[in-house]
């Protein structure tokens, strides 16, 4: 069995390396390479090579194709000392990137040479005022607020759950919010979908939400996807790079699609669902905890799972559930507290009761288990219909 050192030596022999001085020369050339920083976020926040793209090592393989489709582009990949970047360079080579070098000595050596370093911008006086209540909390503070401003959250649905979740995430200063929704604002939405308003009737929900959120907080960039999430567009949308997904979908096929994609892309999902007076909230952290299929391996038949359009929902219930989703998303982004990972919170607004049940990883899970049997997108509508007929999955 090879030791770590043996492995590193072998990997380094299989990749190209570049020293700090040469890398800086390339950076100053007429066709500068892309610097790719594979360190963790805490390391990045303390400074990076100017113009570098940041993708933590653990997310490199799943995110790089979306962020860097051009495989012929010259890439200098770096970490703190040159080891993680060696492994990253090896992976990039295997993914077909043709012109990749690993920075020997990493960012430490770059800095030691006195080369230019960019540090994330500090908060403006306006931001200090806007986020002052966050800055006062030790768990958030300036570093946490900077982190939120650099964070990217994708919301599935701009409806009942997406409305409060997006409003609070935008108010909190989550810098980039993506919203996927194909619907337009309808009269029957306004009893609960508070990101929209009467004057927006007939307007695309993603555009209505964008207007509301950007008016609430100009720090936020809202990316709109006026489409239904499907097996065909999910890779393109996730390829834009997201730290957390907030799932407020209104149907089972989308729920299972979001789950499978999130497991394969290693993106945490904050799950919420609602019906009449009752809600469910949990957090799925791929590979660290259970996924949606561990919790609900099989969707119920239609008569057991009416939608809110069929069965109704108390207007404020999504306000409670969606706000909890926003709170969980902020905790995941900040890496603080105990999330609902491994716990399903059950809310009953009629009894005003909160219960929780435990959710465990299923070793036999077809997607995140030990021997996955589902490894690519399936026809999710067909999958849910088959389950509904009792055929099973």
């Amino acid at each position, binding site marked *: 069995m090879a030791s770590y050192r043996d492995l590193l030596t072998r990997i380094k022999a299989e990749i190209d390396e570049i020293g700090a001085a040469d890398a800086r020369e390339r950076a100053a050339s007429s066709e500068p390479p892309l610097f790719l920083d594979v360190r963790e976020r805490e390391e990045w926040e303390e400074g990076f090579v100017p113009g570098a793209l940041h993708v933590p090592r653990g997310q490199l393989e799943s995110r790089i194709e979306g962020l860097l489709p051009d495989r012929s582009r010259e890439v200098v990949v770096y970490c703190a000392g040159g080891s993680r970047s060696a492994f990253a360079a090896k992976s990039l080579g295997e993914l077909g990137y043709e012109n990749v070098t690993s920075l020997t000595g990493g960012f430490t050596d770059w800095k030691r040479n006195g080369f230019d370093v960019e540090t994330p911008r500090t908060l403006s006086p306006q931001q200090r005022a806007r986020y002052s209540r966050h800055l006062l909390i030790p768990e958030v503070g300036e570093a946490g607020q900077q982190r939120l401003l650099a964070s990217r959250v994708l919301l*599935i*649905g701009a*409806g*009942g*759950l*997406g409305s409060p979740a997006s409003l609070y995430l935008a108010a909190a200063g989550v810098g980039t919010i993506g919203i996927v929704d194909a*619907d337009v604002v309808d009269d029957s*939405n306004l009893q609960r*979908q508070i990101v929209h308003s009467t004057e927006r009737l007939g307007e695309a929900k993603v555009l209505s939400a964008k207007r509301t959120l950007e008016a609430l907080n100009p720090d936020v960039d809202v990316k709109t996807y006026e489409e239904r999430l499907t097996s065909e567009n999910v890779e393109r949308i996730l390829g834009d790079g997201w730290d957390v997904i907030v*799932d*407020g*979908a*209104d*149907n*089972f096929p989308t*729920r299972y699609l979001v789950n499978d994609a999130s497991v394969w892309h290693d993106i945490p999902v904050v799950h*919420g*669902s*609602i*019906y*009449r*007076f*009752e809600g*469910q909230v949990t957090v799925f952290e791929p590979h660290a905890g259970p996924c949606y299929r561990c*919790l*609900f*391996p*099989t*969707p*119920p*038949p239609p008569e*057991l*799972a*009416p*939608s*809110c*359009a069929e*069965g109704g*929902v108390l207007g404020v219930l*999504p306000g409670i559930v969606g706000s909890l989703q926003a709170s969980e998303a902020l905790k995941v982004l900040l890496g603080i507290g105990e999330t609902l990972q491994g716990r399903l919170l*059950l809310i*009953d607004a*009629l*009894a005003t009761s909160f*219960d*929780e*049940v*435990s*959710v*465990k990883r299923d070793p036999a899970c077809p997607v995140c288990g030990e021997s996955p049997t589902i490894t690519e997108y399936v026809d999710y509508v067909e999958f849910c219909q088959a*389950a509904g007929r*009792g055929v*099973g*999955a």
Partner: protein
Amino acid sequence: MTAVRIPPTLRAEVGGERQVEAEGDDVRGVLEDLTARFPALASQLFDDGELAPFVNVYLGGEDVRTLDGLDTAVNGQAIILLPAMAGGS
């Protein structure tokens, strides 16, 4: 007696109750007592005598599939029946 929490989608089958009491030594016994009194529940909970795959049953907050399934002995703790809900809009 074991308290069984009924999800909103199954309440019509038990006369609208949010919670009902049922008797039995294990989960199967409790659920069978329930379906004997509310026959419409049977097809929603059982599939060929086994727990239907789309219903989660929790005893004391633990999924009975991670315990002894329908043979899990009840111990005074409440049972929660829980199908997945998809609603979000």
